[in-house]
């Protein structure tokens, strides 16, 4: 329950048992009656208050009336003078009595017209008589005026402000309605009628008070009208419950895996790497043969890679093709041995979906993509690769591979370690361990391990190494190249602890999960 401060004050001042006039409440809580009235009606709308209305008569003594309170009514002064003149015994001249009463001007007519009406005596043919039984001290009109003055004085006293002639009061009970009417007719009293609103607490109001109420402000919304009219200066703005939940806004957002890829790309560009681009469907030559993967390697069966129903690739640089074949058959360099595995051009030219983006590295290192490269160079890609694997919570048939390499003179294993430590440090992985490993295309090779930032578990975070001479020699590269690869999804799962990568990547995705996942920073 939220109310404005004024509403709350009214509610607290109101009584459940008595109707209380709004003016009384206003006086009590020191608010303007208008404010209290508005609050009362708002509270009535809420069902917390009952507002009742009664008509009320108020009276005020006019200046003339006040004069007569001080000097007595003219007819009383005339009566007293008449008595003095002996009019009780015999009629007296009107002129003599009026002179004796010190009446002048309009007061004469007033005295004369009321003298007979009230029965103080008779006025006939310029002569006046007085009824000796009349008592001016008992004059009802005079008493009524005094009662009203007294009530006004009481009222003002209670307010703590000085009485003044403008004060209105309810007619005292002692004053007869006829008398009042007569005074009003004589212009000694002004009568006004008004509607008086009183309030009483409803049951709901009592309950709300017992449960406790917070206060709020008055203007709900800032409107164009408020601004243009300038009214905004006079209003108070309703306080909102700023802690309450609002309906969540649904906006567009970049896919969480794209965000992760962006983050990786930012880091790599910052480390001086240029982005590579190349075909998803490519000859096995670029995917595997250049990488010195023997053609009978288990990873080259259709169980691991997706062969496509396509005619063979025609354009492969012939010199490169020959050199790669020679490396496979005979090895590279004086003391090199080749593989004791079959090698055919048919296999090399067959087109597959790439199982890794190292095919892009081969295209670039050979000069086929961008022309011959002079060291130093750094290149990367964050692109899709395809593996014929079982689709399960941690394996997808297609996923993003982060691929990067550095080409320079005299690179050592220490340079490799320094580069990758720096890369992983950007993702909060600070204690990279290098486990000696074997890849057909790199030597030395290292699996990279790091501690999960949350669980502390030691997990594989990448595969790396220095490209072999059998790879670089045929490509025509005469300096060192170190390279590494990592599944982007693995990094994502590490960063977010997703259980099932299929919720995120692919047509099985859950829109709600995508909408709710924390963004990458």
């Amino acid at each position, binding site marked *: 329950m939220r109310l404005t401060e004024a509403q709350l004050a009214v509610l607290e001042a109101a009584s459940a048992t008595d109707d209380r006039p709004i003016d009384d409440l206003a006086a009590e809580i020191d608010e303007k009656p208008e404010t209290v009235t508005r609050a009362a009606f708002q509270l009535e709308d809420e069902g917390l208050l009952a507002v009742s209305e009664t008509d009320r008569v108020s009276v005020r003594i006019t200046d003339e009336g006040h004069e007569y309170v001080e000097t007595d009514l003219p007819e009383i002064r005339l009566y007293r003078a008449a008595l003095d003149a002996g009019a009780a015994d015999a009629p007296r001249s009107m002129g003599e009595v009026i002179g004796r009463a010190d009446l002048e001007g309009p007061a004469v007519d007033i005295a004369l017209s009321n003298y007979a009406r009230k029965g103080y005596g008779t006025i006939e043919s310029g002569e006046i008589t007085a009824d000796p039984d009349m008592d001016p001290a008992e004059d009802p009109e005079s008493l009524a005026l005094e009662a009203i003055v007294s009530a006004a004085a009481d009222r003002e006293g209670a307010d703590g402000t000085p009485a003044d002639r403008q004060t209105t009061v309810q007619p005292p009970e002692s004053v007869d309605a006829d008398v009042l009417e007569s005074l009003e007719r004589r212009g000694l009293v002004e009568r006004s009628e008004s509607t008086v609103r009183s309030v009483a607490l409803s049951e709901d109001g009592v309950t709300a008070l017992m449960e406790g109420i917070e206060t709020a402000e008055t203007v709900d919304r800032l409107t164009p009208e408020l601004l243009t009219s300038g009214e905004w200066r006079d209003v108070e703005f309703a306080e909102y419950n700023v802690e309450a939940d609002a309906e969540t806004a649904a906006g567009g957002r970049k896919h969480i895996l794209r965000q992760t890829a962006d983050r990786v790309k930012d880091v790599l560009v910052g480390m*001086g790497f240029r982005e590579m681009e190349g075909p998803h469907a490519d000859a096995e030559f670029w995917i595997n043969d250049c990488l010195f993967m023997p053609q009978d390697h288990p990873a080259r069966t259709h169980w691991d890679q997706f062969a496509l129903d396509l005619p063979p690739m025609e354009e492969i640089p012939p010199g490169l093709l020959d050199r790669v074949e020679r490396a496979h058959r005979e090895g590279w360099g004086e003391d090199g041995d080749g593989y004791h595995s079959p090698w055919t051009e048919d296999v090399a030219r067959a087109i597959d*979906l790439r199982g890794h983006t190292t095919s892009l590295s081969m295209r670039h290192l050979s000069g086929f993509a961008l022309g011959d490269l002079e060291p130093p160079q750094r290149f990367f890609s964050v692109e899709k690769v395809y593996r014929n694997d079982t689709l399960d919570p941690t394996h997808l048939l297609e996923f993003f591979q982060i691929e990067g390499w550095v080409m320079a003179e005299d690179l050592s294993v220490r*340079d490799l370690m320094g580069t990758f430590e720096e890369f992983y440090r950007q993702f909060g992985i600070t204690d990279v361990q290098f486990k000696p490993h074997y890849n057909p295309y790199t030597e030395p090779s290292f699996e990279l391990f790091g501690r999960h930032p949350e669980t502390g578990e030691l997990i594989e975070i990448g595969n790396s190494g*220095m490209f072999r*001479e059998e790879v670089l020699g045929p490509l025509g590269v005469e300096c060192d190249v170190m390279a590494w690869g990592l599944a982007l999804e693995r990094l994502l799962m590490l960063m977010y602890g997703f259980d099932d990568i299929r919720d995120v990547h692919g047509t099985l995705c859950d829109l709600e999960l995508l909408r709710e996942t924390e963004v990458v920073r």
Partner: protein
Amino acid sequence: MPVVDVDPDELRELTGHEKTDEEFIDDLFALGLEFEGETEEGELQLEFAPDRLDRLSVEGIARSLRYHYGDARGVHVPDTNDADWTIEVADSVPDERPYVTGAIVRGVDLDDDALDSLIQLQEKLHATMGRKRAKGAIGIHDLAMIKGSAGTDGEANTVTYRGVAPDGDTFVPLDSDAEMSPADVLADHDTGRTYADLVAEYDRYPAIYDDLGLFSFPPVINGRRTEVTAGSRELLVEMTGTDQWTIDRMLAIVCYALSARGATIEDVEVAYPDAAGATSASPDAGADDPDADTPHPSAGRTLVRPDLEVTEKSVSHERIESTIGVAFDPDEVVDLFERSGLDATYTLGEEVVYDVEIPPYRVDVLHPYDLVDDVGRAYGFNDLEPRYPDVGTVGGRHDRSRLEDAARASLVGLGFEDLLNFHMISGPENYDRLRVDPGTEVLGGGDPVTITEPYSEDYTQLRTWALPSLLMVLERNTHRAYPQDLAEIGLAAERDDAENTRVAERRTVAAVLARTDASYEDAKARLQAVCRDFDVDLATPPTDHPTFIDGRTAAVEIDGERVGVIGEVHPAVLVEHDLELPVAAFEFRLDALE
């Protein structure tokens, strides 16, 4: 990667080190063998990369540990006794599997653990170097059960590797009681069925005979007669395959393992047919010899096996230092070589070069560079101080990926949820469910790039457009809050033989608006906004597309070129995807925004 089960008690016995399991696990990690868990019997399951195949047995792992601990140094080659037995190769041997090698092993004392280890080594070698027995297959026999025959040269103690007709001679294979022909084995025996593919194309099957007849059917199964037991004391180890080097290396690894158990290795002569091709050990096998014209590739050669010869490669000191990034004293390098199980000598001069001797079980050393890795491992790669290379290069994004990002930002700004779907899809999802026929001119109607042997019927080709993926996502998310305004920028591809890769790949921009009041105008408003962002001219002349409602479909023309389609999706397509509210959509080529 191969996994080997190793009994830690055996490790303790073979290394002579009373280490705890945990200590062994740490030491093995340093060698590159990763602890994966324990078997029910408490054996350590160790996984490692398939280079050091000499570590496929507890004997090999113990040898590596002994070098690691410094208990062994340099190259060790087991002594071998002179040959008493001959494996003679007949002309009738299948052309597809011409090579054989072998050794005699005496003084074997195989307890159950050692026998298990030998069987495991055999299986693991089959799985790796042997390429699931296709390239090399191992047969180990109880020599006592073999009766040598007189060879063609009159030598005693000869067994013959030859061909046999599929329904020719019979034998009792392992795990069976019945006499079977090779064809019977392939049809009726479990192991036979498993390996039947290996010889499916052969006219004659490989077979090994002694004086008593057929006793082994490589690469499928051995005969029961010569089965090895814990009681066997003398063994014939033979290997057949498609490459001599491969089976000789596999044999070396087995001989080293048996030698480590205290056995003595004895040479075997392998006699290939004469160049003239006249020899035929058994008349019946050669009866209809169809390959009489094709001489055996090793015709005329006689080999003494096992081949335990040490090979030599040279590597320069400079190469070692520059690769590892550490300055070494030459003697220190020699020490590291010896701790790796290699021998090295060098001569001081202008350039220090090491002549390194490599034992025959090291199948992974193809290049002198591989020796540098051994020095690094012995030194301890993890002891190296990483350093950030002092190499300056300028980074940057590819134009295509920057364009893609900009378009994605534009779509996201318009309130689209960016999606990421698979590039692989099924034919029905790509075409039929959107009422599109392959090979038609409409967007999405391109010829499919299909996968030769799809693993799953859900992923049989590359998608020719992205709208099907977005409709699949809508279909899966009807229980989620609407509106669902989805967009994707991703790969679409179709067959195009004019391309070098035979595939036309493009990035496509696709968007759907799924909401109760979705209309053409909603889609058009957003498409206009994207085009405005890229300052390109958009026109949408009316067109027909089976996926969309007639009269509410337009071609997307950007800068005068037709690059896509926009419209309200046809109710039949919506109902097909269980959607109960309208969808407006567009799709066009990303490069139109360039």
